[in-house]
Each structure stands twice: as structure tokens, then as C-alpha cells.
């Protein structure tokens, strides 16, 4: 109900009825092996781990834990398949990848439901963003397979060999698509390791790969935790490493690869500045702030986690933001009304809560919306910190949760200096009605993606990746091909 504290009560006293996505149409097996050489195999050491639903803490399935021996088997399968796959007519290679895209489109709802079950993200996001974008990514790169010479004029292109790829848990299927599609289009074979908390959609993708008739061994999917990932990126038979995850692990990988001459792409952490000028359309900016930090529970490397508001509109923006936060529904990821789902894991929830304590200890003022959260599962209310400064840890460090640090500024230069005062450089946002100001800001912010009067937009045709400690290389678009090719004279 609309009260002075809750000015945007859309429900006007009426409650939303539950609108759960049905799950009777999905197929999740009780146990999954490792997808190696076209078959699901039992792990050498016979070890499995549970993957749970973070919204209920219930077990969804048991998944094989790949050891070094399993990874070795996968790399050998990929190596064996490489000869044929890299020499197949490029147009035919493209047609295999188109098949993957089409099958994913056909099975889109099943993928969306499993993604929400396994990872905790709202069904609206998995249904409307993750899954369609993943299919679109395959569709886009399928078309490149026989057009690569146009992407690199004056050079001959050659595939690299076996790509070892390790992906995070925040966009499990989409990250698998980002990794697989360009690698395959360029003629490489792949060993992919999904995150241990979200392996299911990657394993379903293995089924799609099989149904699409790809030759055995072209795509291999090994599940496990950090040790499995280390075995993938450290395997001497891997020619290229692609990693998305924390900057901390990125550093370890880069050191491990030193001297091997192997090509690598790293898509690491971020702490994006979202800059709102007084001349911005304030209501749209508030929506952009909400989308920037609360999208996918804030489990987004490019999240707009540092808000800079011009002083003259700061009170208005913050009040409107609080009003809007009150309307956000935190709860069942499968409910179509849900705005913010479950935190991905108990461990991540601990991390977030630790930062909430740090932020307050350091003198920040914390505000959380008053919504109810379920008893079971892992949840965090949308949170903002005001009264923080550049040196605060909640301003400097990546929290990877629905936590926004708000600061103010007076001039363009002040906003820019503060925005660039970070070791990260993945993304940024700017809100203003002045086009000239947008372009000056996008020229000056040291980050790989800048959104102007929008935020968290993704497209297969658009390159993504970071400056500074946010990574090396780009994924997506024409520039994303570079990572999977050797360019020769």
C-alpha cells in the first residue's frame, strides 16, 4: 500500500499472486557423468558432488568430479577431434553451430527453468536474457565460420588447437555460449569446465551438442571445482586458455601460463562506475541504477556497483532509488514476479554479508529495502551504502552481490577522476541528456564497455571485456574472434 515510506507501491494493497514457472517439462537426471569424446563417462575416481537449488537448499542432481586423469582424457579427446574439425569445410562447421543455436531455441524454456533452479536467478532473466542470448551467440558465430578472412584483412587465419575454458556461476549457460561458439567457429576443439555450483545447463548443452551431431570430442565438458579448473588451464595439451572469473584467479592463471607461449583471454572482476549527471532523465537513470546493480542479484562482473550522482540531484536520486527498491520482490527464482532471486551459494552469501559488516564498520550508512525473504535458501535484500568514500573497501572491492556504494560529485572532472580511481576497468555507465558529454565521458573512462543512458546491455555482435585488472582480450563481436585464431602473413 502506498505510504510515505513506500511511494511506489504498485500493488496498492493487493498482493501479487504466485506465478511460478512450471518445471514438469524439464529433464534433469539424478546423476551426470563427464561429457568426453561424445559420451557421458563416469569419473576415473568415482567421485561425485551435489548441485543444489540455492533457493531451497535441496539437491537437484549429483555431478561427476573430474580429476586430473579425467581432464587428461578430455584433452586427448579434443586433440584427436581437432584434426578433423579444423579441416572440415568452414561452411559445414558453421552449419553444425547453427544446429546448436536452433536446438537451444527449441528447448529454450527447459534451459531457462534449469538455469533458475540451479543458479537462483529469476526466471524472467533466464527466460528473456540468458537463454535467448546464448542461442543468439551460437547463431552469430556460426555465420563467421566461413567468413573469417573478412574479419582480418591481409592476414591468413588458423585455429589454435584445443581450448581449455573455465567459466563462472553467474551466467552459466551464457558464459558457456560465449566460450564455445567462437572457439568452434574458428575451428578449435574445446574442454570446458562449468562452475561447481551451476553445472547443469552446461551438461544439458552437452546433450544439445550431441543431438546436433557434432563429431565426438569436439566439445568436452568436465565438471568440478577449482582443482579441476586448474587441471584444465594447466594441461600441457591445451593450446589456448579462456577464463572468466575473479582477478585473483586470473593472476594465478597468467603466471602459470608464463613462458608457455599459449594464447589466453581473461575476463575478470569489475567495479563499474555509474555516473548520473544533473541533466539526466532522472527516472530513467534510477531504473538504470536498479538494473545496473540488482540485475542477477548483483552477481555481474560489469555491475554498476559504484554510483556517482551529481550533488544537486543526489537527494532526489537517492530518495527515488529507495522508493524503487521498496518495490523489488526478492524470492522464488521460478516466480515470474520475482525481481531478485537467490544468492548463488552459501559461500557467496557469506562474502556479501562480510562486506555489509565492513561497510558499516568503515562508517558507511547502510540502507536495505524492507521486503520479506524466504526462510530457506540464500537471500540478500537490495542494499545501498551512502556516506562512503573512495578508500572504503565497499567502494574499492568487488562484492558480487546486490550492494551499491553511492558517492556524489560536483564537476565532470571530479566524476571522471573518481570513476577511474579503481584497479578495474571492465565497464561504466553515464547518464545525461547531453550527447557531447556522453562522448567525452566514454572517451575518458578507462573501461572496455561504456553504457550511455542504459546499462547491462549485451549482444553477440558487441565486444565485451576489460581494461586494466579486469582482463585481457574481448569476447563477442568481430573482435571476439581474435582470441581463437592465429593470424599469419
Amino acid at each position, binding site marked *: 500500500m502506498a505510504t510515505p515510506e513506500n511511494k511506489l507501491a504498485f500493488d496498492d494493497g493487493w498482493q501479487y499472486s504466485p506465478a511460478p514457472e512450471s518445471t514438469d517439462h524439464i529433464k534433469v537426471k539424478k546423476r551426470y557423468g563427464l561429457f568426453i569424446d561424445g559420451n557421458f563417462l563416469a569419473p576415473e575416481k568415482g567421485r561425485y558432488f551435489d548441485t543444489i537449488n540455492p533457493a531451497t537448499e535441496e539437491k537437484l542432481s549429483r555431478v561427476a568430479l573430474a580429476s586430473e586423469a579425467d581432464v587428461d582424457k578430455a584433452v586427448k579427446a579434443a586433440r584427436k577431434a581437432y584434426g578433423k574439425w579444423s579441416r572440415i569445410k568452414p*561452411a559445414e562447421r*558453421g*552449419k553444425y553451430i*547453427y544446429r546448436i543455436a536452433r536446438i537451444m531455441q527449441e528447448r529454450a524454456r527447459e534451459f531457462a527453468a534449469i538455469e533458475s533452479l540451479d543458479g537462483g536467478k529469476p526466471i524472467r532473466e533466464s527466460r528473456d536474457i540468458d537463454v535467448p542470448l546464448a542461442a*543468439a551467440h551460437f*547463431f*552469430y558465430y*556460426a*555465420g*563467421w*565460420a*566461413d*567468413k573469417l578472412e*573478412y*574479419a582480418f584483412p591481409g592476414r591468413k587465419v588458423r585455429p589454435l588447437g584445443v581450448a581449455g575454458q573455465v567459466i563462472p556461476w553467474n551466467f552459466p549457460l551464457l558464459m558457456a555460449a560465449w566460450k564455445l561458439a567462437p572457439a568452434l567457429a574458428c575451428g578449435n576443439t574445446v574442454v570446458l569446465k562449468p562452475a561447481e555450483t551451476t553445472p547443469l545447463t552446461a551438461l544439458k548443452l552437452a546433450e544439445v551438442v550431441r543431438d546436433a551431431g557434432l563429431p565426438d570430442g569436439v566439445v568436452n565438458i568436465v565438471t568440478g571445482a577449482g582443482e579441476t579448473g586448474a587441471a584444465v588451464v594447466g594441461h600441457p595439451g591445451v593450446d589456448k586458455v579462456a577464463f572468466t572469473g575473479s582477478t585473483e584467479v586470473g593472476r594465478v592463471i597468467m603466471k602459470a601460463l608464463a613462458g608457455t607461449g599459449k594464447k589466453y583471454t581473461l575476463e575478470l572482476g569489475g567495479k563499474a562506475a555509474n555516473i548520473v549527471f544533473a541533466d539526466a532523465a532522472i527516472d530513467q537513470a534510477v531504473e538504470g541504477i536498479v538494473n545496473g546493480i540488482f540485475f542477477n542479484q548483483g552477481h555481474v562482473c560489469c555491475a554498476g556497483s559504484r554510483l556517482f550522482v551529481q550533488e544537486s540531484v543526489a537527494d532526489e536520486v537517492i530518495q527515488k532509488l529507495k522508493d524503487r527498491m521498496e518495490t523489488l520482490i526478492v524470492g522464488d527464482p521460478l516466480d515470474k514476479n520475482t525481481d531478485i532471486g537467490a544468492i548463488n551459494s552459501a559461500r557467496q552469501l557469506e562474502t556479501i554479508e562480510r562486506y555489509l559488516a565492513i561497510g558499516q564498520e568503515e562508517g558507511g550508512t547502510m540502507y536495505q529495502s524492507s521486503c520479506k525473504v524466504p526462510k530457506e535458501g540464500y537471500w540478500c535484500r537490495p542494499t545501498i551504502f551512502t556516506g562512503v568514500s573512495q578508500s572504503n573497501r565497499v567502494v574499492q572491492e568487488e562484492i558480487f552481490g546486490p550492494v551499491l556504494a553511492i558517492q556524489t560529485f560536483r564537476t*565532470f572532472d571530479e566524476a571522471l577522476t573518481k570513476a577511474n580511481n579503481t584497479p578495474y576497468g571492465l565497464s561504466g555507465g553515464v547518464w545525461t541528456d*547531453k*550527447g*557531447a*558529454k556522453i*562522448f*567525452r565521458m566514454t*572517451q575518458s573512462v578507462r573501461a572496455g564497455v561504456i553504457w550511455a543512458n542504459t546499462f547491462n546491455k549485451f549482444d*553477440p*555482435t558487441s565486444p565485451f571485456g576489460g581494461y586494466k585488472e579486469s582482463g585481457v582480450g574481448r569476447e563477442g*563481436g*568481430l573482435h571476439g574472434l581474435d582470441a581463437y585464431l592465429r593470424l599469419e602473413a
Partner: protein
Amino acid sequence: MAAKKQSGSGRLSVAKTYKIYINGKFPRTESGRYFTLEDKRGAVIANVCRGSRKDFRNAVVAARKAQPGWAKASAYLRGQILYRIAEMLEGRREQFISELVLQGATARAADKEVDASIDRLIYFAGWADKYQQVFSAVNPVSSSHFNFSILEPTGVVSMLAPNDSGLLGLISNIAPTIVGGNTCVVLASETLPLSAVSFAEVLHASDVPAGVVNILTGYRDELTGQFASHMDVNAVVYCDGGRKVARSVQEAAADNIKHVIARTKTDWASDSAQHPYLIRDTQEVKTTWHPIGV
């Protein structure tokens, strides 16, 4: 009516009437005229519509109306629709093969032509969201401006399809034109017109909006002048024309400064016959300037 033999079971087969394709519909030519397609032994294969100037004008109206909407469709959607055309054509392989054979191709050649046609559609489907990335530019102007040049479709394209390649040649010209957001009016091969009409049926079943592709059959000599001179056409593509035709097309096109794209005799089956410059042929370049500053 296409003449067909009685089938083995004693049942009389039903033959297809070959009509033209305008604005997502299959009318007969408004002129009521026809020409007869005969096989090598002189037997009648079909009575084909002999399209008229008026048919062409109607088709241009449809193409003009459809163009802005088609250009506004996302590149991804246009790519998926082209892919869908390929899917539909794959499903009708047998029909297209037998039609090519009916028009004199060997079974083997027909088989190859249909395969190549499907793959060509896939090839251009893939370009839908890529040609812009290859041909556009951000221009490093000396002043403080953000300056970029992108391609935009020229608009309505009239097209005289290759005469010697009724299906593959047709598709090799239509696909790059429409993938870039243009709409077109096409005159099918005069000697091999049947595949074009059947291809219209494939387009019709592939979520291609009405008016995006319009296909006429008829006499090339009679209609070339119209295709080249129509004042609401932005570009004319003519295939296989000799020097004399080239001159008359360019003269007629000059009245509204139409783009003239001449495509000489080509082996459409070769890989070198497919490239993105076929898309660029019917594109305009638009440059935008925007200040940078506070």
C-alpha cells in the same frame, strides 16, 4: 497448367499453375498473357505468366511499402529469416530437383544446384549481423567530434535475374539484396522460370514479410526498360546483359540517378561467386557527426 503424365497407379496427377508473386500474394499477371515453356522434345511443361509493366509497377508499390519495416527489423531477425528460408528450401529439395530436371537439368546437376542454393542462403544469413561490422567505420576526424559511417539499405531494388541459373543464380542475387534491408522486384530467368515461382512459395512460408521479395516472370526484352527507368526504384541489378543492354539500362537509370549494378555472366556455383560485396552493392553510406565535450 503444367502438363503432367499420369502416375503409375492410374491416378491423374494435379499440375501446378505457375503464377507471379506480388505483395505476399500469388496473382496471375494482370495482362492475362502467357508464354509456353517447352521441354527439349517440344512438349508443354507449363504456361507461364508473361508479366507486364503494370505488374511491375504494382510490385514496386508493394516493395516500397514493405521497405521501411524490413529495414527496421533487427539484423539478427533478418538473419534468422534467411536461415528459415534455407530450412524451408531444404525441406522441399525433391520438388526443386524435379523442377530443374523438368527444365532440362541432369539429376546430378539439379541436386548440386539445390544444395548450393540452400548453402548460399545460409551464407548470406550469416552476413546479416556482420557486413556492417566489416564495412562500417569510425572516422578519426581532426576536430572534436565522434564521427562514424554505417551502411543503410538503398531502398527498392529492381533485378533482372541470371538467365542461365534459374534457382541458384536467382537466390545468389536476392539474398544479398534483402539481407541488407532492401526490398526487391525480380524478373525471373526467361528460359528457366519455374524455380523462381516455387521459390516464391518457399519465401511465403518463411516469415518473409509481404512485399519484401516480389517475383515476376515474363520477357526480358519487354521489361528491362521498365526495371531500369521506374522513378521509385533506387537501384537496378541486371545480370548477363551485353554492352548494348548495359548502355540502355544506364541511360534509363539516369533519370532518377539509380544505382546500376551490372553482374556479368557468372558461375554461380563457384565459391568465388559468394562474397559480402554483393551486399554492399545495394547499400548507401551514412556518416554521422556528433560533438565531444561538455
